[in-house]
């Protein structure tokens, strides 16, 4: 049913909103430790797909297997606690929280102090806080955001928020990390920082599912690329295969065609 090394597999996923078919029989598979990218024009269903994986949308039909277990239809917070972590396209998630608060909050699934513990701040609560802080500091140095520690998200630049958002997904120690357009709106130097972060995460053995419009970054990073168009998967393969695919080029008629052929 599920191939060896496959960690996340989608089968025949159908998601509709009224008359609109957002996902129309999409299949995909992600192997453990790989970087897999989902690309496609705006409105192709990329974010719908990851919202379905992370429990924000509930597809009407299909299956999403995570380690042989069907997670389709489970609640978002449940899926997060299973080890699938995601970032959001809009990085302004918790405007009033500082980077440190957000990262400490990212340890939620790994802590379990009760209300009573929290009220008195002793025993378990205290131990967990110190441990969470240690993990948060690790993520801070990993994402190079030392100077943002005590700055509220609302006071940060867009790029800094993206960095915090990635660090937040990381501090959750997920097995699979899903990045929704981590490079959109960033300049080249920031893109490079994010690219390095993704490579670093890969080196740490994480499986990465990436949605990205920056084709160059996608080609550079991915082991495998999935192309969506109008809710259907039109191609899947290595970056080289995708670059040469006739259908993909057609789907990207216009701005991106030249981009693809230049690779």
């Amino acid at each position, binding site marked *: 049913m599920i191939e060896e090394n496959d960690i996340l597999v989608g089968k025949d996923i159908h998601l509709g909103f009224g008359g609109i078919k957002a996902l129309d029989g999409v299949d995909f598979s992600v192997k453990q430790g790989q970087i897999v990218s989902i690309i496609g024009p705006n409105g192709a269903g990329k974010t719908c797909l990851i919202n379905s994986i992370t429990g924000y949308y509930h597809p009407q039909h299909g299956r999403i297997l995570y380690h042989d277990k069907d997670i389709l239809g489970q609640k978002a917070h449940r899926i997060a606690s299973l080890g699938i972590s995601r970032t959001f396209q809009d990085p302004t998630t918790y405007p009033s929280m500082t980077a440190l608060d957000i990262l*400490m909050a990212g340890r939620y699934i790994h802590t379990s102090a009760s209300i009573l513990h929290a009220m008195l701040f002793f025993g378990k609560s205290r131990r967990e806080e110190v441990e969470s802080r240690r993990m948060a500091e690790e993520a801070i140095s990993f994402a190079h955001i030392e100077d943002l520690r005590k700055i509220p998200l609302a006071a940060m630049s867009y790029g800094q928020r993206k960095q915090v958002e990635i660090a937040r997904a990381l501090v959750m120690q997920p097995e699979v990390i899903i990045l929704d357009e981590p490079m959109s709106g960033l300049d080249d130097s920031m893109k490079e920082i994010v690219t390095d972060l993704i490579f670093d995460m890969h080196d740490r053995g994480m499986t990465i599912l990436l949605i990205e419009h920056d084709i160059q970054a996608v080609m550079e990073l991915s082991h495998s690329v999935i192309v969506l168009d109008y809710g259907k998967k039109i191609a899947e393969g290595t970056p080289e295969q995708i670059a040469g695919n006739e259908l993909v080029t057609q789907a990207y008629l216009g701005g991106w065609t030249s981009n693809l052929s230049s690779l």
Partner: protein
Amino acid sequence: MTVRGRKKTDYARDLALLGTRQRWIALAIFLVVLALLPFIPDWSGDIALRGWLRWTNETIIIIIAVLGLNVITGMAGQVNLGHTAFIMVGGFTMAVLTTAAGWPMLAALPIAALLTGIIALFVALPAIRLKGFYVAIATLAFLYISQFIITQFDITGATDGLYQIPSPSFWGFKIKGYLRWYFFLMPFLILCIMISANISRSRIGRAFIAIRDNHIAAQSLGINVSWIKIKAFFIGGLFAGLAGGLLSSRNSVITTSEFTFENSIWYLGMIIIGGAGRTAGAVVGVISLSLIRQILSVLGSSGVIPGSSTTSIYITYTIYGLAIILFVSFKPLGLISIWHKIKLNYRRWPFGV
């Protein structure tokens, strides 16, 4: 950028509320001031000590209640217009347990807090399905429903309320008079402030703030948003129930009519002006608004403000309304944000403002 006076070598120290010696000293001074506070003479002669202490005791109880509202509305972002009803439930629990069941006040107090917490938890159930404005309306409905229910039963005194609620006593030593009450209430206040501060620096406090800031993204942290809302109401109810229990015992009488919608609005204003979501903000908010109210009422009754006795009440409302408008537009993070800014500027001096 040099950070002044901060040398912390481990995370436990950095997490501590009283991480530095300066803070311990500040706390010691503060406690001494609190101990001496009731002995400060009053300016208005006759009402003297009593008026001042009565106000202080009332304010302590309100702070405890508003700390609870601060958890529900300030931290978790669920606008609660029924907070006064939670206090009422705590007050009536105390009243019924001590008068009808004959419990001692100190035994009834934790039950009052706990029962209010549990009732608040049920009030949270509609809040799970509702958002923003609708939660406010649901809690408002709870205020009127609970008042209606309480006035329907003889055991809760029907429409007359309950009388002769006993004061606490320790082996024959009765807590009566403003001064004894002051020293009886103070440990509760300190405990509640500590608990509130602990909540906001712990796992659950961050979950509250996360769902307030973004309840959709918060799910991706693994936070069960419905469950966290329920917990917020439960904790808020505990504070309100404790405050209610203390209040009805101190007043020795309780009627549903003292718990008005207007009070709920005052409490909300207090956390807005103080700084929503912050323990110190709630404390500062209650003290400053209560102080304004007290000063104006003293001025009104002593004839400094011309006109009838209601004039000062109207002035109070006007100032209150104005303060909220000004704070929401110019200092949305409340009075406490001014203090944080001063602190930040001190640390960064002379590098930036």
